[in-house]
């Protein structure tokens, strides 16, 4: 029987009423949980796990439910990102750039609808990829060693140099701040504390959620407070709650490219899920930002990272299911869940538990459809947040930030840190330094350092290892091109003008 025959059987599994209910419940819980950053899918899954173990649900149903939470939360997070500028995952930091700009232009409805559609497209395409290429891709992903990861990080930095269009110098300053923040904590290879000042609570470094919510949400609250009494920004009329066919057609290629890039980057265990949307957004900006609208509220700027992050989230299941290697923190929890249900992930999963693998694939398809059906009508409900009076909204955002950060580690210390980063974010915004590159530095910095040091440890100190494989050499060529081509084009234009 070929893959599609199996997939049909998978649909037979997924279409059982109970499993449909599981998929629906999963995406619903995921959406709600995702709206509040900090709690996140990891905690939701971990809290549900013991309940699932005890209740004796069949493994495929349990997996369908948990996977539903996983990608439901991916979408849920885009809601608070777009409406309130409170991103809770690395991928939604990218969505915040154009998503929040759209909200301020009064197009929050379109942005949310586009996010839902993009999630659906990205997720659905990635499932096709999962069904068709899972075993082959898994083999490809493990060939991706430290040197290749390092090259990929360098590429991400190079491609994102002008991420939010505030000029190269300010972008570099912001990235530098991010890298500096990233160096706090135990050094990843030898566990030597750096910039911890003997404070145990800094040993794990600065938590992504703490920094992000401080920089984005708390600084937003400060800005809103400052504007109090002047024009009311939150009173912007939300004109529509759907995207027009024309807008959809305009974004079609962006959606496809975003899904594709997200998928291939997402397959890579360890880093993929994190940087899929960064890389996709950067590429898209280079390819199609001909009018300079990216970063100022372009629907495609929402479509690309959302498609990419959902596609990457699905692709991250490939190394988990076929190799038993989790590609992200959430899939690591899913791995624990699978083992607890007596399903051993790995190459034998598809043979030994076909109903689990194909049922999951089919249910992910249904889950994505549920996600779209659930969220498109709800967009008009969500955008009403913006018509909340300011006396409610400002403390609301502040309260939500505190809860979200406290939920991560139950630590008051983190709250103090968050407020500190809020002030930092406020100052940076006052001098128009973009915030997204700070997060980029914070997230990619440690990955880059770890992989560089691993690569050098593997080669016994020979720097040649960084370019020795065709794969890494290819990525370096791309990196060079992404730096030189725009510069060359600019030079060309200037010469022509002379």
């Amino acid at each position: 029987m070929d893959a599609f025959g199996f997939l049909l059987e998978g649909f037979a599994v997924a279409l059982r009423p109970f499993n449909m209910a599981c998929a629906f419940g999963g995406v619903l819980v995921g959406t709600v949980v995702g709206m509040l950053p900090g709690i996140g899918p990891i905690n939701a899954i971990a809290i549900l796990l013991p309940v699932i173990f005890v209740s004796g649900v069949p493994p495929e149903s349990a997996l369908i439910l948990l996977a539903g939470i996983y990608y439901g939360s991916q979408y849920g997070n885009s809601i608070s990102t777009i409406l309130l500028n409170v991103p809770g995952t690395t991928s939604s930091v990218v969505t915040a750039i154009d998503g929040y700009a759209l909200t301020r232009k009064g197009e929050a409805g379109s942005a949310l609808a586009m996010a839902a559609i993009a999630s659906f497209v990205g997720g659905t395409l990635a499932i096709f990829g999962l069904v068709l290429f899972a075993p082959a891709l898994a083999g490809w992903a493990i060939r991706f060693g430290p040197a290749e990861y390092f090259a990929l990080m360098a590429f991400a930095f190079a491609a994102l140099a002008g991420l939010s269009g505030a000029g190269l110098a300010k972008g570099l300053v912001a990235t530098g701040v991010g890298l500096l923040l990233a160096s706090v904590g135990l050094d990843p290879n030898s566990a030597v504390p750096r910039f911890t000042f003997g404070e145990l609570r800094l040993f794990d470094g600065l938590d992504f959620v703490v920094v992000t919510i401080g920089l984005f949400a708390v600084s937003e609250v400060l800005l809103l407070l400052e504007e109090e009494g002047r024009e009311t920004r939150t009173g912007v009329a939300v004109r529509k709650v759907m995207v027009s066919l024309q807008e959809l057609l305009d974004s079609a290629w962006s959606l496809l490219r975003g899904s594709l890039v997200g998928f291939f980057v997402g397959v890579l265990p360890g880093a993929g899920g994190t940087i899929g949307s960064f890389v996709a957004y950067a590429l898209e900006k280079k390819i199609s930002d001909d009018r300079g609208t990216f970063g100022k509220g372009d629907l495609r700027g929402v479509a690309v990272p959302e498609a990419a992050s959902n596609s990457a989230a699905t692709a991250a299941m490939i190394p988990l299911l076929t190799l038993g290697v989790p590609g992200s923190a959430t899939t690591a929890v899913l791995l624990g869940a699978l083992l607890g249900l007596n399903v051993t992930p790995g190459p034998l999963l598809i043979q030994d538990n076909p109903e689990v693998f194909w049922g999951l694939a089919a249910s992910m398809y249904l889950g994505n459809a549920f996600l779209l059906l659930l969220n498109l009508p709800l967009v008009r409900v969500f955008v009403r947040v913006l018509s909340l009076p300011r006396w409610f909204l400002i403390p609301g955002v502040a309260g939500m930030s505190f809860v979200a950060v406290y939920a991560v580690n139950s630590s008051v210390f983190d709250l103090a840190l968050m407020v500190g980063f809020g002030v930092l974010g406020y100052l940076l915004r006052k001098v128009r330094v973009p915030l997204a590159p700070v997060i980029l530095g914070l997230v990619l910095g440690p990955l880059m350092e770890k992989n560089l040091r691993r690569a050098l440890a593997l080669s016994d100190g020979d720097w040649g290892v960084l370019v020795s494989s065709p794969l890494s050499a290819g990525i370096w060529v791309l990196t060079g091109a992404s730096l030189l081509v725009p510069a060359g084009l600019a030079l060309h234009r200037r010469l022509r003008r002379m």
Partner: protein
Amino acid sequence: MRVLPERSCWVFPLTVVLIVLASCRPPESDRGWECIAPANPGGGWDLTCRTAGRALTDLGLAPGMVRVTNIPGAGGGIAFAHAVSQRAGDGNVVVAASPATVLRLAQGQFAHLTAEDVTWLGAVATDWGVVAVQPDAPWEDLEELLNQWRSDPAAIVVSGGSAVGGQDHMKVLLLADAAGIEPQAVRYVPFDGGGEAMTALLGGFVNVFSGDVTQADGQVQAGNLRVLAVLAPERVEGALSSVPTARELGYPVHWVTWRGFYLPPGVDEGSYRRWLEVLDELAHSPEWEEARLQARLSPFYMAGEEFQEFVHRQVSEFRRISRDLGLIP
């Protein structure tokens, strides 16, 4: 166009409030037992707390549900500091621990805190260390690998899921030491957890994987991995039962990744005795047996005085090795 009534604007804040309420922890109370997992949900310590907590509840040994609190950070350091400074004398709480805790204490990674600051209660199960290679690796058995290692230490690169000086590094150093290989010559590359270290082996970036039975089990069944030796005193159950122990092969090295608990300092004698009785009943119950098998762990029970001594012996041993290696002054 107004499709929904005005009231619907409350849906969002209401949802937020509900989530907030749902994520709130119940207030501290004298009743009820608590297990602190010094890591995020999903990790080994979390699993220890959740499985043991459930078994205690099922057995009727605990008054009601055992509450699991996650206090992640600093490899267990935050929870350790919390137990010492804020829970001293609290007889209703245990903290999950493993040799990772002991190792960090031995290396002074929990600031000024030491293993003497808490009461080590006992261990109820264990994982054992393994040394594994790719299925088509040139070495038939451990002896062949060690032979090449002795003659050309630079040719062998080991991956593991802990930082330099961590558990996966230590166990391979102990083996090297027993085999007459200079520990400083061992090339160890740290990865983020056993999964990534395993991927590095499968991808051919390293020759040897240093990890635990539970990490290797599934990959061995899938034919992705060949375990050369289990670092245990006796053979383990399950997929690795045909693999010899290092001891059988002439290298008396074992690495016991026990799963156990400690109590905060200053717990009264009565509570301590009660915990010991409960732990004893738990460890010998069929419920725990089942939970242990599901987690693929091996039997290992040690408690009370014996366990205290065991932990303190581990501390001095870890300290000696770390010092020999120049990891600590």
